[in-house]
């Protein structure tokens, strides 16, 4: 065969396969997982989402979509009423009989890992990319994400040469009241370690602390996340409900950093590197541009 | 026939009833008298099987009472307790109808008996009312009707035990109740009734058992039991005993 014919055949083949792939791509998406919804939007699939769960709060536009409820307590019929072609969620999605009912109705159900590590994120992004027909964009996104995290690591290591890692406590509260402290094996712990901090809490999971323990640990930096309020309101509520916090070093030095609570669930999300940077800025003041 | 020999009941270390030998004869009304705490209710409790005897057995006909079970026993022995607690809004005839539980006599016959029993207890006019809407005295009469219905019409071989059936009743109904009980006995049933009113006991009972401190003081006809000296010893009350001008039975008058 002549070269030009081969090239022509190749082009036709590529076009055809691309066209076929495009018509097979699911167009109506339901997402049960905040981080996943964000990645879908980052990959340009926001317009394909027809329903999301309660943890999908970013980007803002998603809040206007119909809510399918809490990701562990989904309703089969509820989801089916949105006529989706695909349901994506982490392995936390459930209850399991619901997922089989949805599969039986002909909806594609794809499970993604919620592990907060890079290999999991890479495979998730590749998978999402395939499903959205945006494989290139997916690998580019991953590369830049990895780059950002690498930069973050470098910055932290450098900062730790000149400044000690601060003792940090992460408090998760609701309108300021009764905060839980993040211990080991939590996503909050993962975040603060990547940001170069040292978690003063040694328990596992999120547990309430007695006020005395809080004071005796005397953190240098306080990181807080509030599920109900945001911004200055949240900060004010935290100190109003827990006045004893004002006697910590962190409060006195003004080293109280706010964290977005939606980052704590469902694996690594796109906004993470920026949040890590913000935390590191707070942990190692004066190293912001390094 | 319900009978017992040398019955003794203890509560802890205290002997609350002892030396009771008794036969409830068919056609006879036996009245049980005594001051508070004399053991009257204990005796009734033992005779109907609610209290376990420490000594002596209770026999119903040829078997021990404890060997009679279920409907067979219920068809021969009925008990009217001192107080009844029913917190649900049954209709009067439904409550009386529960007395027919041990039988398979059928709806029609049961309704007839319920109506007759209500009339005997002078509560026929309460038919259709809610039990919860009745006064204490009316409720007491309904329960009397119930136990009457349980043994209706009353015959030899059946025993009726009543614990103070007149305690909440007005004078007229005290008499109509005991009259109904009397008629039951006249048809052959054996009746034992605990009473506080000495005059009622004197009028309606064939024999009287006088208890004091758990012991039988006397067991005989009213004329022989109701003597001033004895009554003063047991009740601590000075009385005159005269004869009822029309009926002839003893009439006890406090001095």
């Amino acid at each position, binding site marked *: 065969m002549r070269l030009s014919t081969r090239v022509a055949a190749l082009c036709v083949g590529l076009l055809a396969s691309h066209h076929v792939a495009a018509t097979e791509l699911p167009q109506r998406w339901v997402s049960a997982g905040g981080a996943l919804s964000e990645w879908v939007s980052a990959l340009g699939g926001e317009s394909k989402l027809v329903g999301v769960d309660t943890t999908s709060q970013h980007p803002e536009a998603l809040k206007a979509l119909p809510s399918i409820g809490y990701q562990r307590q989904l309703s*089969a019929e509820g989801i089916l009423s949105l006529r989706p072609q695909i349901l994506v969620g982490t392995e936390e999605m459930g209850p399991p009989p619901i997922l089989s009912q949805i599969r039986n109705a002909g909806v594609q159900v794809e499970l993604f890992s919620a592990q907060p590590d890079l290999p999991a994120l890479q495979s998730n992004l590749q998978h999402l990319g395939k499903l959205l027909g945006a494989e290139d964009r997916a690998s580019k996104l991953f590369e830049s994400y990895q780059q950002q995290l690498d930069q973050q690591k470098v910055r932290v290591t450098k900062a730790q040469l000149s400044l000690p890692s601060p003792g940090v406590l992460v408090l998760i509260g609701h309108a300021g009241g009764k905060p839980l402290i993040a211990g080991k094996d939590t996503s909050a712990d993962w975040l603060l370690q990547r940001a170069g901090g040292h978690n003063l809490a040694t328990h596992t999971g999120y547990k309430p602390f007695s006020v005395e323990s809080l004071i005796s640990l005397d953190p240098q930096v306080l990181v807080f996340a509030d599920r109900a309020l945001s911004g200055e309101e949240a900060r004010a509520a935290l100190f109003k409900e827990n006045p004893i916090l004002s006697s910590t070093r962190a409060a006195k030095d003004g080293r109280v950093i706010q964290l977005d609570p939606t980052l704590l669930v469902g694996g690594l999300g796109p906004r993470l590197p920026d949040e890590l940077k913000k935390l590191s800025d707070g942990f190692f003041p004066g190293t912001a541009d390094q | 026939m319900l009978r017992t020999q040398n019955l003794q009941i203890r509560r802890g270390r205290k002997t609350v009833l002892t030396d009771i030998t008794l036969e409830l004869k068919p056609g006879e009304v036996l009245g049980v008298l005594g001051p508070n705490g004399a053991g009257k209710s204990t005796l009734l409790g033992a005779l109907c099987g609610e209290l376990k005897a420490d000594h002596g057995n209770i026999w119903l006909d040829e078997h021990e009472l404890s060997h009679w079970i279920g409907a067979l026993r219920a068809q021969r022995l009925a008990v009217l307790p001192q107080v009844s607690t029913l917190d649900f809004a049954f209709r009067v005839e439904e409550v009386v109808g529960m007395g027919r539980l041990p039988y398979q006599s059928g709806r029609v016959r049961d309704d007839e008996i319920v109506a007759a029993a209500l009339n005997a207890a002078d509560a026929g006019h309460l038919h259709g009312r809610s039990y919860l809407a009745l006064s204490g005295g009316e409720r007491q009469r309904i329960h009397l009707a119930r136990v009457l219905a349980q043994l209706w019409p009353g015959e030899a071989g059946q025993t009726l035990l009543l614990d103070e059936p007149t305690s909440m009743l007005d004078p007229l109904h005290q008499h109509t109740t005991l009259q109904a009980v009397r008629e039951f006995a006249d048809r052959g049933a054996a009746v034992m009734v605990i009473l506080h009113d000495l005059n009622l006991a004197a009028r309606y009972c064939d024999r009287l058992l006088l208890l004091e401190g758990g012991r039988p003081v006397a067991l005989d006809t009213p004329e022989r039991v109701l003597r001033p000296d004895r009554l003063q010893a047991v009740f601590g009350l000075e009385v005159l005993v005269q004869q009822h001008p029309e009926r002839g039975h003893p009439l006890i008058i406090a001095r």
Partner: protein
Amino acid sequence: MTVLVKPRALFIGLSLLCLLAIWLSLALGPVSLPLLDTLRVALRMIGLPIAPDGLEQAELILGQIRLPRTLLGLAVGGVLALSGVAMQGLFRNPLADPGLVGVSSGAALGAAIAIVGGSAFGGLPEAFGPYLLSLCAFLGGLGVTALVYRLGRRNGQTNVATMLLAGIALTALAGSAVGLFTYLADDATLRTLAFWNLGSLNGASYSRLWPLLLISAGVALWLPRRAKALNALLLGESEAGHLGIDVERLKRELVFCTALGVGAAVAAAGMIGFVGLVVPHLVRLLAGPDHRVLLPASVLAGASLLLFADLVARLALAPAELPIGIVTAFIGAPFFLYLLLRGRA
């Protein structure tokens, strides 16, 4: 109080209500199915030869999702109401509720052990998960009730007042144990536990349904046979005994039926409150306390009520779902207060 409704009218009315509830439960839902499709699928299900074209979605929704859910609602509503009647008879008090003998708190404890304990062991194999949860809840309910019953027995007799106190004490104990598990749980299991405590008919499937259906049918067929004996029991235990009833055996049966029935219901659907308390009351208001009417009528009323509550649970926040325990409490509690204020309770 005169009886407002004659038994025959009551049964006809309740049966129609129940049929309406079943129909609405099948016909309505987040997915809107054309009425004709629903009818055709329903007819197909009873065996009539109707062509299946275009009915795949309807058959899936109706057959796999709505029908098992309806059956679950019928069974749970019926058995909870029936147990309420049984307990109100046992304690001779119209304010009694199946939870008094500890079966609900025991089931909650069993579920907490399964949920939190299961995750502590690195999560149960997925196939096992739901069965283990139901089994633990069921055994927990039976276990605590058995203990309460045992504590109430002395000299071969069951003292109902003692049982009541034992039930209160064990409920408190089970509650604090659940609290401990709550403390030990991580975020995810905490949520699962919280939702289980709110009750839901979601995720009903035939394979998990049949034990409950068997037990509910058994209890529903057995208890009405003891209706006359239950009536007499209300007079008092000794009075009932003198009427020829084996009172100890009756009390045993009542406790056993409640433990089995409520245990199975809670195991299948989580904690759903107020049905056992409110439904018998409602029926008594209409038709009086005679158990010959009360028992079967309560089954119909309880089943209907729960199906209507489930409709609200499914549709109020569609496509999300409200836990049904919230709906029954929302309706039940104000109604109960109303009854108290009116002096009928």
